[in-house]
């Protein structure tokens, strides 16, 4: 099991207790989910389409509140936090969305710098850091390009760079290799592993790519019909 970087704290980075989620009047999308993830762990979240993977991730990156149960991040109960505290907490979470969600009117540099910009940091202070990261994801030559001018793989790496710029404590990626070829998918996963090792970031990746899961050997959280069956070992995936 790849669990690089020893946990620095005993408090779970992510803890869900009896969490259920329901949209409007429909049935539960998630039912009675319990999860505890230690800091610095690398985790896969898998399950068939419609199993609730994206909904679970939305709870983790604080896009939704659970219908019932509690979400704790870094030991803090999110339901007890003010809106500004939630914003501060979001800045500790990097998210790679399935559809990238890059802003088309901003350059590659500006998209990556976005989390720092909304934190109120000045461009002079983060310029070098952003340039280094953009180079690290292999887009140094495209730093002034706008997203529509980038290929799918380049957009993917740009979205990853944006998720990493804050050196997040938690990285959440929703089907991050859904739109790229297998070689690019491996490169992206190696990037996540490196991040996990270098920064002790807790990584949670939703994917249904079993080849990737087997190749990278990490714990698997398996969702089906809104239920989390078990913390299944990667060998069983």
């Amino acid at each position, binding site marked *: 099991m790849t669990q690089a970087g020893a946990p620095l704290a005993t408090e779970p980075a992510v803890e869900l207790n009896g969490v259920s989620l329901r949209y409007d009047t429909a049935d539960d999308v998630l039912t009675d989910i319990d999860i505890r993830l230690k800091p610095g762990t690398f985790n896969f979240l898998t399950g068939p389409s419609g199993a609730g993977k994206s909904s679970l991730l939305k709870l983790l990156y604080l896009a*939704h509140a659970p219908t019932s149960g509690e979400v704790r991040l870094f030991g803090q109960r999110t339901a007890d936090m003010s809106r500004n505290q939630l914003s501060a907490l*979001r800045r500790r979470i990097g998210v790679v969305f399935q559809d990238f969600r890059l802003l088309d009117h901003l350059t590659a540099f500006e998209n990556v710098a976005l989390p720092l910009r909304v934190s*109120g940091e000045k461009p002079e202070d983060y310029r070098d850091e952003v340039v280094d990261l953009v180079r690290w994801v292999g887009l140094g030559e495209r730093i002034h390009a706008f997203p529509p001018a980038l290929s799918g793989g380049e957009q993917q790496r740009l979205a990853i760079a944006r998720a990493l710029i804050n050196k997040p404590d938690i990285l959440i990626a929703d089907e991050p290799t859904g739109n790229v070829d297998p070689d690019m998918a491996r490169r992206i996963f190696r990037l996540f592993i490196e991040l996990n090792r270098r920064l002790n970031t807790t990584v949670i990746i939703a994917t249904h790519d079993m080849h990737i899961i087997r190749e990278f050997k990490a714990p698997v959280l398996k969702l089906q019909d809104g239920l989390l069956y078990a913390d299944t070992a990667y060998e069983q995936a």
Partner: protein
Amino acid sequence: MNIKMNPLLPESDAREAALFFVVAALCFLAVLATLVARGTYTAAEAWTAQVEGEMTVLVSDTDRRGAETAAGLIEELPGVERAHVLTDDELDELLSPSFGPGGIPDGIPLPLLIAVDAEGDTTALAAEIDTTLAEAGIAGRADTHSAYAAEVREALGTLRIAAIGTVLLLTMTAISVIAFATHAALLARKDIVDVLHLAGAEDRFIARLFERRFWLLGLKAGAAGSVAALAVTAIIVFSAQSSSAPSELLPKLSLDQWDLIILAVSPIAGALAARIAARVTVGRSLRSSL
């Protein structure tokens, strides 16, 4: 490396161009309504003051010489600026609305009227004139125009309420349109708002982006509307000044310092309304999410 950053909200699009036109038009109407209402009110106030400062004394059972004597007695009273017996031409002009362009037919006896320009309380003065004339043995009665002036005052009150109501209605319409447009802009840019929100931007940060955008839009559109209103007002003033027969009851559009203050303040008020509408709309929208 150039670190000049693009704005987080994209440059204005067709929706904002339409909003610019609507806000400019509303500001134009509001400013014009304010200027016209103020001008009308100023004209009516001046006219009422003139009516209230005048009296007419009808003398009877005497000839023109007796009337001249009566005018002399009246002019000596305190508070009277001028008293004179109306000439036939003046009477003709005064009564022409009743008799038409042909004038007063021959043979109709004309009343002897004394026009009195006064200051202060004309009601007390009228009683004093009546007493003075009675003591001099002249039959005469002073009319202060008070009933007529009271009607004008009542009409002025209605005019004032209508003017304030019109300006308020236009202002509320402008605010509602801006709030609606902000909401539409927010929905149109929900993807950007979501990304900013999930990247950790505080509500205040996101709201400020929209506030700044709509503040500038309101300021520019308001200025355009005010300039257009200034141009129209200048044309009206110029036309009125070059007219050979200006009417006392037409609005007195003068473009004095108060009018210029209205023109200067309106864009700022419009922009402020836009900013507040944006803040409230964005704040409400963001609070509906986690």
